[in-house]
């Protein structure tokens, strides 16, 4: 018995040492990324401030943009969303809505509101997606193209859109996303500044819960008052703002949000479009772009631009949020496994030697070890293997450092984004920043284990989503609702999805 106790004790100590070592490595990486992010904020602010003195609407060299909107059962939100997309400020824009085999009235609503007419001819080239039934155009909105196809998932719908547009660039957005009116101009900046090398650019994603939306535009910006969306709003600022600026500065941007990203159309077509067998198509496509260009020694850039903002609904129930996060985690593993040869490979520059190892160690392994720690340490304290003071110190440092990172995201938002900056909203967000590290973060660590289990047994479904819409009848200002079912994974492939996974 003594021998077993000693073995358990040594195992726990070994695990503890491993966890502490990993903790130091991960937090050193976070410090690098967020430190680079803070330095990058100033440069980003200066770049944003310069508005060259010329008239984009008369320049023959402005690249056209197709806004590609995959839509699956979006009848509640599609008209409102489309109204917002059609009023985006940009010289040359086409909005491509892909109805991905919706069961609801999505297509009917579009046909009614926009007087759609069928294009009476077959598509004269192959499109790598599920069968397309019809293509529609609107006589009243020349810039609108609607594609009606069999259900094939978000990637499949995006592929239909990017094959059917002739625009030089395309902006992948979620149907429930509200993009600020000047956001296309801002997110296109890397393509305007370096037109020969820019292949992708992403903007900031923020949580819309708490804001008021009228006529496809946000008329009042407020932080969420509900706890779960509030926690996500701070999480998004930390990961989608400061983290992205840092990764951009370190030439390590490997993830552009599926809710709002701008890509060179030909580049994505050349890599075969979006992969249809993954639930993290946004992560995967950027990694493959890096692989394609870096592998051929081509000069290229993937950039992050902080100022353009896309607002998206955050799940407000623990069930819906859990499903979302499990899917993100599974997608992350899928992408890392599919591109494992790039990990640590200097041929792919910073992506190979820093970004992908970071995702592997910090974002994939980190939460698993963290959850392991929560399970093993309490009995270790009871057994006297670990000193309570040591554990208290460890927890204190972990939470304290986490709060610092969360607040750094809020600092970035106050400095650069300036969407809601009053003292009261800022204090509320800082409160969420504390709570994000007490409870929420620990919960996510256990979610990672369940997601790993799902990955191991081959779960590939997206899970059902229910939209509440943005309009005045939407209840809580446009909040994505859980459908209440315990098991909501479905056979149909969800096209309407949330933003991608934020890094810790």
């Amino acid at each position: 018995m003594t021998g077993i106790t000693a073995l358990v004790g040594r195992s726990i100590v070994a695990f503890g040492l491993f966890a502490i070592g990993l903790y130091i490595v991960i937090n050193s990486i976070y410090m690098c990324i967020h430190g680079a992010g803070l330095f990058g904020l100033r440069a980003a602010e200066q770049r944003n401030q310069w508005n060259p003195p010329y008239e984009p609407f008369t320049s023959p060299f402005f690249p056209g943009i197709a806004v590609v909107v995959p839509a699956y059962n979006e009848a509640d939100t599609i008209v409102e969303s489309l109204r917002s997309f059609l009023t985006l400020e940009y010289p040359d824009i086409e909005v491509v809505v892909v109805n991905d085999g919706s069961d609801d009235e999505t297509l009917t609503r579009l046909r009614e509101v926009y007087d759609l007419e069928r294009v009476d001819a077959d598509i004269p080239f192959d499109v790598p997606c599920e069968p397309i039934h019809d293509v529609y155009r609107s006589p009243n909105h020349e810039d609108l193209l609607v594609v009606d196809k069999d259900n094939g998932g978000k990637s499949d719908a995006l592929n239909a859109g990017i094959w059917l547009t002739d625009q030089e660039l395309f902006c992948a957005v979620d149907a429930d996303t509200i993009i600020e009116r000047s956001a296309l101009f801002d997110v296109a900046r890397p393509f305007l500044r370096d037109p020969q090398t820019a292949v992708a650019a992403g903007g900031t994603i923020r949580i819309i819960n708490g804001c008021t939306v009228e006529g496809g535009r946000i008329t009042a910006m407020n932080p969420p008052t509900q706890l779960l969306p509030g926690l996500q709003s701070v999480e998004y600022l930390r990961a989608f703002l400061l983290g992205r600026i840092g990764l951009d500065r370190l030439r390590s941007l490997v993830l552009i949000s599926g809710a709002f990203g701008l890509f060179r159309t030909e580049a994505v077509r050349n890599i075969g479009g979006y992969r249809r067998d993954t639930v993290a198509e946004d992560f995967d496509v950027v990694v493959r772009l890096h692989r394609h260009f870096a592998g051929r020694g081509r000069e290229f850039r993937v950039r992050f631009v902080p100022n353009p903002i896309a607002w998206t609904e955050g799940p407000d129930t623990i069930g819906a949020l859990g499903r979302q996060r499990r899917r993100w985690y599974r997608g992350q593993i899928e992408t890392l496994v599919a591109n494992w040869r790039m990990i640590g490979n200097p041929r792919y520059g910073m992506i190979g030697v820093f970004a992908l190892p970071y995702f592997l160690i910090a974002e994939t392994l980190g939460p698993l070890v963290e959850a392991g720690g929560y399970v093993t340490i309490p009995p270790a304290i009871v057994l006297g293997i670990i000193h309570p003071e040591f554990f208290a110190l460890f927890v204190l440092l972990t939470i304290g450092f986490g709060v610092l990172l969360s607040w750094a995201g809020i600092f970035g938002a106050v400095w650069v984004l300036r969407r809601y900056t009053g003292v009261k909203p800022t204090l509320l967000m800082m409160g969420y920043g504390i709570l994000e590290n007490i409870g929420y973060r620990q919960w996510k660590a256990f979610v990672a284990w369940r997601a790993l289990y799902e990955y191991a047994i081959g779960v590939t479904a997206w899970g059902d989503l229910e939209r509440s819409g943005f309009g005045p009848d939407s209840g809580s200002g446009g909040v994505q609702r859980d459908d209440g079912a315990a098991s909501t994974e479905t056979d149909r492939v969800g096209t309407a999805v949330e933003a991608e996974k934020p890094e810790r």
Partner: protein
Amino acid sequence: MTGVTGSRIVIGSALLLAIVLTGFGTLIVGMAAYSDRETRQKGALKPIVRDQLFDRIAQPNPDWESWASGLSEAERTVAVDVLDEYLRRLEGDRKAQFIEASEALNIDENALRTIRTGDTHEKLSALTWLVLLESRVDVATLRQRCSGTPDLRAGAARLLYESDYDDEQMVGTEFLLQGGKALSVFGRDTLYRLNRNDPTPLLERGSIEYRDWSPSLIIQILSVIEHSFPVGDDVPLDWITHLLEHESAEIRAAALRSLRPYGWREDVLKRIDPDRHATDDSPIVREALYGTLAEWGDPETVDRLLEMLRHEPNDRVRLAAARSVYRRTDRQEHLVVCGTERAWNWVRANAAVRGNDT
């Protein structure tokens, strides 16, 4: 770690953490309060300042000096923002009045000072103001102070263009092409504005320097030539026809497109072998060829184009060619008999719904 020492370390760490977080938190809240106050103040002042501006413009003697001297610091900041907004939108007499208002605020003098003393970002902002105000700055100063980065050179070239400097085209083009690297869209647009009416200097420069330019810059210059007016047959285009043999498909395609305004020049027609380009491995080269032939549009050339389309293997290229023929010629019906029925039907069906171009 003994119990007492451990407790002290924990308490000490907690205190240190509390101090750091309190300091950082105070900074964030302070910035938020300041930023909020600034935003509210600007929001409240903007309509007032804008109304003041338009009221004065409506008067026969706006007396901008007295307007400027009566502004508070906050109002001046807002007035600068409002002027920036309207100077970008307006032309003619109305713009001239806004320029006078700007000069009363000494924006031009400040900008002139900044291009001598500021850092790169300040200089870019200053150049932007000088462009909006159509101010004149001597070339020597621009050369000395504003040639450090491609953006600065583009800003300086734009200033020469907007201020109608005597030798704007030569000097502005020289600024832009200095370094031989790719331009931003702003830089390319400026190069286009400088050369669109008469690209002769650009073409002559190209005949001498094109080997020194990066492939990206060559493509950009060729696209400027494509969009510019054509020039006489004494201007050299042979360097462009040499580029039709370049190893880069993008350059071959750009060279073909740049010759679209020159279908009337015998030397160009002699140097292009459409049949050879129609068998180019790269679809973008073939697409550029078909577009160029459709642009030239004479019956003999279009016949040749239609014949080539019979053998075109790429669906997307066929579609692009069908679009070009639809837009540029009256020979659409012939598309049906040259293997492009599906492409032609698609182009026609789209046009039918949209009621206009494809």
